[in-house]
């Protein structure tokens, strides 16, 4: 066992923190919240120049060829600084599955464009049912000549308004289980018949409704195999969930830090409020939870990195992240008192993102169900082995 960061990881962490503190201070985060695009293309290009988009893409596609764990470290810093950018959808939700399932031509073209910052990608997965169950995929797909025609509506698609391409999950067969008969398409966002509308979320984090009206997609734009798309979705759910955990972890670390600092500075009854046990014990509990989330996230990530992804650990990490992010923000707000209720406090920027993080790639109920399935299948050690 070893909990140490590698030298690469320490470098990534330091460089990311420096860059984000300089290029993306909180007034920038606030400004982008009201911006039409929701992110800064100049900053995006600088991120690409730093090698972030291609961090774990192979060098042949213009990437740096680092490992999944290194991306986790970077995401944690982005979460800590609340970077508003389509990084998560482009890299976590699209580049990773394309690297895994894409054809040689697809990888060649797409991954290079992602690595150099030229193109923004996103995943159009959830629909009106607003779940991550396969049964929720209803977007109709017909084959007409050499093209597929896509019709339906996708909901809560991050940064679709700014995306150049969409990975669209559609239903290509009604036979068998809902998991069978799902296909993933790479769709040009400028295709005729696509209509995008930004959903007014509390976090202003640019989630969209995307309507598809007989959108033509050429055959060669299928990612992976026809009707086998749910494997890709499962891959995205697992890889993406842990990266989301890392982002949320960074957020909880920042919230705990600013709340702890406030508790040391804020004087009431002639003492810092952090000297009162009612406050101090709340902070101590926050520390326990944040540290627990940190190592649970790293543990799940390490298993992915080592090529032995554990569905159990991944769902444990996301369940924990959902709980801890919300709890830490809520207690952080409360410890700040009335100022915690204001827009002016940086903490509010973290708090306002609780729900979008929670429901990104599975809420507690979804992941508890997955954990329960794993527990049900596990044979306990004390049966068979001993006694």
């Amino acid at each position, binding site marked *: *066992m*070893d*909990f*140490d*960061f*590698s030298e690469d990881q320490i470098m990534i962490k330091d460089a990311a923190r420096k860059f984000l503190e300089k290029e993306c201070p909180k007034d920038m985060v606030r400004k982008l919240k009201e911006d039409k695009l929701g992110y800064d293309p100049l900053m995006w290009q600088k991120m690409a120049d730093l090698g972030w988009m291609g961090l774990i893409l192979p060098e042949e596609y213009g990437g740096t060829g680092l490992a999944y*764990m290194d991306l986790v470290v970077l995401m944690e810093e982005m979460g800590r600084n609340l970077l508003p950018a389509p990084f998560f959808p482009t890299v976590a939700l699209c580049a990773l599955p394309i690297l895994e399932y894409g054809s040689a031509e697809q990888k060649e073209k797409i991954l290079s464009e992602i690595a150099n910052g030229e193109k923004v990608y996103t995943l159009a997965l959830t629909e009106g049912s607003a779940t991550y169950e396969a049964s929720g995929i209803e977007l109709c797909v017909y084959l007409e000549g050499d093209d597929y025609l896509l019709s339906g509506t996708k909901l809560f698609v991050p940064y679709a308004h700014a995306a150049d391409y969409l990975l669209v999950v559609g239903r290509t067969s009604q036979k068998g289980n809902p998991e069978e008969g799902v296909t993933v398409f790479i769709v040009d966002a400028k295709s005729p018949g696509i209509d995008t509308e930004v959903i007014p979320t509390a976090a202003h984090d640019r989630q969209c409704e995307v309507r598809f009206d007989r959108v033509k997609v050429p055959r060669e734009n299928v990612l992976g195999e026809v009707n086998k798309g749910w494997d890709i979705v499962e891959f995205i759910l697992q890889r993406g969930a842990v990266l989301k955990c890392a982002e949320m972890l960074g957020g909880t670390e920042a919230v705990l830090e600013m709340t*702890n600092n406030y*508790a*040391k500075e804020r004087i009431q009854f002639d*003492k*810092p409020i*952090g*000297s*009162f*046990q009612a406050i*101090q*014990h709340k*902070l*101590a*509990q926050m*520390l*326990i939870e944040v*540290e*627990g*989330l940190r*190592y*649970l996230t*790293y*543990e799940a990530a*390490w*298993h992915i990195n*080592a090529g032995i992804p554990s569905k*159990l*650990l991944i769902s*444990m990490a996301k*369940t*924990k992240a959902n709980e801890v992010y919300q709890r830490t923000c809520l207690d952080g707000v409360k410890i700040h008192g009335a100022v915690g209720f204001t827009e002016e406090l940086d903490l509010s920027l973290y708090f306002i993102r609780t729900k979008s993080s929670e429901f990104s790639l599975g809420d507690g*109920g979804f992941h*508890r*169900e997955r*954990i*329960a399935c794993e*527990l*049900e299948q*596990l044979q*306990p*050690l*004390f*049966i068979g*082995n*001993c*006694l």
Partner: protein
Amino acid sequence: MDFKFGEKEEQLRREIREFAKEELPPGWLAAMLEEENSDEDWGFAMTMSGKLAEKGWLTMSWPVEYGGKGASLWEQLAYSEEAAYWGIPGVGMGIGGVDWVGPSLMMFGSEELKKKHLPLIASGKPDGVWCTAYSEPNAGSDFANIRTSAIREKDEYIINGQKIWTSAAHRARWCWLAVRTDLNAPKKHQGISVIIVDMKSKGVTVRPLINYAGYHIFNEVFFDDVRVPSTNLVGKENNGWYQLMHSLGFERGSVAGRGCGYNRRILDELVQYAKENHLFREKEIRHKLADMAVLIETQRILACETIWKMSKGSNPVYEPSRDKVFNDQIAERLAIIGTGLLGMYSQMDPLQRKSKWTKLKGCVEALYWLFPGIAIAAGTDEVEMNIIGQFGLKLPKSY
């Protein structure tokens, strides 16, 4: 980073599982904290201590010269986890022999004390069994408030006073005793020392305290002009507070590995019970069990982080308190969820674990009735939270 135990630890786990299979009665499922309660259980625990000693596991992390194997902290953690999972009794040599008396003696004890007591503990025999006497009627969380005195007279100390909540005092041969050696010290933390007392000494009286569920775990211990050789002083006179903070650190640090092994066992039992009794299909129940699985995995990985820091040579200050309070919180939830799952059957007297109505050998009831004791021992949750606040978050002292 690397989140896998090494082959050495995995091999040790396999050996312990094999040992458990051979040495424990069929269907064995020990309930925590209760081995000192009945003569029968205690007798069995002592037999197991002897066997663990023969295997070299009882004090495996101690140096060879003191009866250990020089095992790594990781092996020690794997052993604690497995022993607790399988419910192997007799791992502690009373209250603290293995976990903090030994390590504290190695840190502060004279050569003479080390040579005498460490092999005794490592032997797994009744003469190596300890109790630990810190609390007094007016010194609970405010531990430094102790009054029991040890007054030096030539080459002896004369001890007078009363200790309370002294677990296993009725089983122990030796007492790890916190006393006041300077009655006029300007501050109460000064003037405290640690002295070893033979429980067979004249003037030592042990009076049972029975817990609300009928367990005889702890006691009152009275010291009435008890004469102890001055060489029984551990470390320096009046340096006791400093030494005791280390001992308490060892004590808190011993909770995590054992706790996650034991909690994991109870969870596995509950999942199995739920599956066999058609309860697992109920969403509320399976989600509660899923939550417990998340908590216990978190506990395990935090325990590993503490060990990792120690293995790198740093001295974790708040982490043992973090791990201890987290274990208390998990034990409480597990006990409440577990009794809920057993429903009416959870009303059974935990001491009647062979009763035909008792489920899972009474381990869930035992956890329910004993977790408040686990939570209070070695420092209440509130005391642990103070330590986390002060040392983990650098907040001002709050008490």
